[in-house]
C-alpha cells in the first residue's frame, strides 16, 4: 500500500480521510468542483460507515503498535488496547432464524465464517500480555482480514450505483465478498469475474458477491437494479440491460472535461440533427446521410428514417434517431465529406471552428475516452471508447448486456443537456448517474426488443430535467430518501 500511496501522492502514509479524498476525484479549484468532489467523498464515507468497516487509520495504528511491541520498542499499551476494541464493535443483525433453521433452509448459501472469526478476534489480550514476538506477529496477521474488508469496501463505494440500497442496508454485504467461492461452490470462481450469489434465499443472510473484483461495476448494478421502482408496472427492458446502463453511468468520472469539449459533444448532436433536417429537403444529401447511418441502425429503423426523409418529414426522422446516431452521423459525414459539414449545418460550422481552435480539447480520441461507454463483453475492457455498431437485438440471455454496450446515447445526451443549461462539466459526475437511474424508472417497453422505449425514456427524463422537475443543483449531500 505504501507503494501505491507513493505513486499517487509521493507520500508513503495516508490517513483514511486522505485516501477517500484521493479516490473521490482529482483536486478541484472551482466551487462547483469542490462541492461535487465533496459529495463523491461523502458517498464513499457513507458506504464505509453503513458497512461498519474498521477505519484504515485504526488498522495502520494497530499494525505499527504491534510492530513496536514485537520489536521490544515502546508503545502506548492503553491506546493500542482501545484501538483493538474497535475491531470488536461490529454486531451481527438481530437474528430471525436459529442456527438449525439456517442449516436446513440455507445450506450452501449461509456462511458467515469470515465475519464470525472477525468478531472473535481479540487482540487486547496480546497487547496487554507479555506475548512472544511470534504471538505478536500472529496477532498482526489477524489484521489482514479487517484490512481486506476495508479495501474491498472502498472498491464497492467507488462504484456505488445511484440510489443503492444493499450497500446501505445489508452490513454484511462487503464482509461476505468471497474471492474464491470455496465456501459455497468450490473454487471455480477463483479470479473469475464477480458474480451475485444468494438472491431469493431469505434464510441465507442476503446475497453477496463471489469471485474477483473484475466486473464489479456491473455486478453491483445487477444487485441494485431491482430496487429501482419503474413508473409503469411493466418494464420489459430489464435484467442484463439495466446493469449495463448503470455501469455506463458510474464508471466514468468527468473531472478533466473542459467546457469546450462539452460544447463539442452538443455540437456533434445538433449538427447531426441539422444534417437530417437538410436531408429531408435534399435528395443527394439524403443519400449520403442514409449511407452513413446504414452501419448503425436496425434495418427497420433505417427504413423508417429513409421514408420520413423522402416524405420531407424532418420531425419524424428525428424522432427515430437516437442522440448517438446524430453524433456518429456528424462524425461519419465529416470523415467522408471533410469540406461539406459546415456548408450544410450551422452547428457543424461552429464545430469545425472549435476543432481548429482547440484541437487538444476537441479531438476524437479525447471525446471517445470521456464520453464513450464501457464494453467489457465486446472489447474485454472497462476502458471507455466509441464503438459505432448497430444495436444488438435482445434475443434473451446475456444478449441484454450486449444491448447496453451498444447504448451510447445516454452520456452523450446528458452532456448535451449540461452544455445547453450552462453547467460546469464536473456536474456530470452528479447528473449522469442520477439521470440514468431516472431514465431506467421511466422505461416502458411493449416488447423485449423495444429500443424506442429506451429513447423515449431518455427524452422524457431530459424534458423533466429541463422543466426543473428534477432538482440537480441542490446536490446530494444532506439529502436522504
Amino acid at each position, binding site marked *: 500500500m505504501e507503494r501505491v500511496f507513493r505513486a499517487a501522492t509521493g507520500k508513503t502514509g495516508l490517513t483514511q*480521510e486522505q485516501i477517500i479524498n484521493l479516490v473521490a476525484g482529482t483536486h478541484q479549484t472551482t*466551487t*462547483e468542483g*469542490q*462541492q461535487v*468532489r*465533496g*459529495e463523491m*467523498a*461523502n*458517498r464513499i*464515507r*457513507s458506504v464505509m*460507515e*453503513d458497512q461498519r468497516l474498521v477505519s484504515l487509520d485504526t488498522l495502520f495504528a494497530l499494525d505499527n503498535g504491534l510492530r513496536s511491541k514485537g520489536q521490544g520498542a515502546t508503545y502506548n499499551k492503553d491506546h493500542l488496547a482501545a484501538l483493538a476494541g474497535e475491531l470488536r*464493535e461490529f*454486531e451481527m*443483525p*438481530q*437474528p*430471525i*432464524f436459529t442456527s438449525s433453521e439456517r442449516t436446513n*433452509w440455507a445450506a450452501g448459501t449461509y456462511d458467515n465464517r469470515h465475519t464470525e472469526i472477525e468478531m472473535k478476534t481479540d487482540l487486547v489480550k496480546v497487547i496487554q500480555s507479555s506475548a512472544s514476538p511470534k504471538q505478536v506477529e500472529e496477532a498482526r496477521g489477524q489484521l489482514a482480514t479487517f484490512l481486506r474488508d476495508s479495501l474491498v469496501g472502498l472498491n464497492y463505494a467507488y462504484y456505488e450505483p445511484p*440510489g443503492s*440500497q*444493499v450497500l*446501505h*442496508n*445489508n452490513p454484511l454485504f462487503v464482509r461476505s465478498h468471497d474471492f474464491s467461492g470455496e465456501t459455497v461452490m468450490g473454487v471455480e470462481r477463483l479470479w473469475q469475474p464477480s458474480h*451475485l450469489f444468494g*438472491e*431469493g434465499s*431469505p*434464510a*441465507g*443472510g*442476503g*446475497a453477496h458477491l463471489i469471485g474477483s473484483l473484475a466486473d464489479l461495476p456491473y455486478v453491483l448494478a445487477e*444487485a441494485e437494479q*431491482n*430496487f*429501482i*421502482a419503474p413508473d409503469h*408496472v411493466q*418494464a420489459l427492458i*430489464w435484467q442484463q440491460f439495466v446493469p449495463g446502463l448503470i455501469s455506463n453511468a458510474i464508471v466514468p468520472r468527468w473531472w478533466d472535461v473542459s467546457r469546450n469539449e462539452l460544447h463539442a459533444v452538443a455540437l456533434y448532436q445538433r449538427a447531426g440533427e441539422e444534417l437530417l433536417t437538410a436531408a429531408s429537403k435534399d435528395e443527394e444529401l439524403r443519400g449520403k446521410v442514409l449511407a452513413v447511418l446504414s452501419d448503425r441502425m436496425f434495418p427497420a429503423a433505417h427504413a423508417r428514417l429513409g421514408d420520413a426523409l423522402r416524405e420531407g418529414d424532418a420531425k419524424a426522422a428525428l424522432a427515430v434517431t437516437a442522440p448517438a446516431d446524430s453524433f456518429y452521423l456528424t462524425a461519419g459525414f465529416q470523415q467522408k465529406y471533410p469540406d461539406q459539414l459546415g456548408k450544410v449545418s450551422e452547428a457543424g460550422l461552429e464545430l469545425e471552428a472549435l476543432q481548429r481552435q482547440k484541437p487538444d480539447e476537441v479531438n476524437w480520441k479525447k471525446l471517445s475516452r470521456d464520453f464513450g461507454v464501457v464494453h467489457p463483453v465486446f472489447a474485454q475492457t472497462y476502458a471507455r471508447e466509441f464503438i459505432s455498431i448497430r444495436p444488438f437485438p435482445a434475443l434473451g440471455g446475456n444478449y441484454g448486456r450486449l444491448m447496453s454496450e451498444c447504448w451510447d446515447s445516454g452520456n452523450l445526451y446528458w452532456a448535451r443537456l449540461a452544455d445547453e443549461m450552462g453547467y460546469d462539466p464536473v456536474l456530470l459526475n452528479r447528473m449522469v448517474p*442520477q439521470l440514468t437511474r*431516472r431514465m431506467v424508472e421511466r422505461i416502458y417497453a411493449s416488447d423485449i426488443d423495444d429500443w424506442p422505449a429506451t429513447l423515449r425514456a431518455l427524452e422524457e427524463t431530459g424534458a423533466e430535467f429541463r422543466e426543473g422537475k*428534477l*432538482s*440537480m*443543483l*441542490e*446536490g*446530494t*449531500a*444532506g*439529502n*436522504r*430518501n
Partner: protein
Amino acid sequence: MATGKKVSYVIVSTSLGLCFLSGGQTVTAQAPVQVNPHIHVAVDLVQLNVAVTDNRGNYVTGLKPGDFTILEDGIPQKVATFGEGNEPTRKLADAPAGTNVGNAAPSATGNALEKNAQGQGRPGEKVTAEDFSAAVAGANVFVLFDTSNYMYRGFVFAQDAISDFIRSLDNADRIAFYSYSRDLSKAAQLTAERAQVLRGVRTTVAGDDAALYNCLLLTVKDAAKYVGRKVIVVFSNGPDNASVVPPEDVAELAQSTGIAIYMVCTRQAKLEPISTAVFERMTAATGGKAYFAKSWQDEERAFASIRDDLAHLYSLSYYPQPNPNRGWRSITVKLNSEPMKKYHVRTRNGYRLQASRFPKEEASLAVPE
C-alpha cells in the same frame, strides 16, 4: 383506566420510532463542502407505540403516562410525549439541551424535519407541537400487495380483500398502495383519498419473480419519511425468490424507524415454513402481527384486528438518557402499579443506533408528486 372493545384474540404490540438527527449538512451549489471527520451519533427521540390488553384480549384504555416505566438498557427514561389512540399526543417534557423539539417526530431521514399537510418530513423547517399533534392524528397505512407469480391463483380474491380493507379503515388514516413482484410499483402515494387508492389496487397485474424483502425495505424507507403512527400491511403468501437483502435487515430498519408490519396471508402460506417463520417473527418484532386466514375471502378478522390496533395504541416517546452503548439497545416497557401487572404489554425489545455523519442516499431527483 378501563377495558375497551372486546376482541376475540390477544394482541398487544409496541413499535418504536427514532429520530436520528444528522450530523451532516445540506450542501448548496454555492457552498464548498465541509467535511466533519468525526462520527456523530445522535438520537433525538425514541417513539414507542404500545398496546396493552388484559387476559381476555380486551384493550386496556385510559392509562396515564405515570402508569408506564420505560427502561433502555436498564436505564430509566422520562416520558416526553404521550397519547392514546387517535387523540393528539401531549408534550410532557422538554428536550434536553442541544436537541431540537421541532424534530420530535420519528424519522430516519437523518435530517431535521418539517412537515407538509400530509405529515411528511422534509429537511429544514421546524414543526410546532400543534403541527405534530395534527400530523399524527390517524395512522399512515402502507399496503404492500404481492403480485408475483406465487399469487396467480388468488390474485383477484386478494385484490377484493385489499379493497375491503381499504374501505374499512378509519377516515383519519392516510393510505398508500404499493405492489411488488421483482420490483416495486407505487400505484398510489400516501393519500386520504380512498378512491385514488382503490384505483391503484385495480391497476395491478400479476406476474414475475417475488422480491418481498427488497420491496418491503423500500416501503419501510418510504413510510419512515412520515411523522406519526405508521404501519405496513403486507398481503402475501410468500415465498421470496429474488431479494438480495435478508429479512433481518428489513426488520431492524422497521424497528428502528417505528414501523409496525402486519402480514395478511392465507393458510396456503403455512405450507412454506421459511416464509411462515419470517412473517411471524418479523411482525412480532416490529409490533405487528401475522394473520393466516382460510382464504382471501375470509380475512375480516385480520382487518378488524389491525383496525383495533390502530385505534388503541398508546404513543409514548422519550429522549434517551446518556448511554455509552453504540450498538443494539434494549427497551423494556412495564406498567407500574401492582394491579396493572396482570396486563400484557408487548414491546419492541430494542433498536440499533445508527451513525449519521453522512447522507446515505440521493434524494435530489425525487419527482414532485
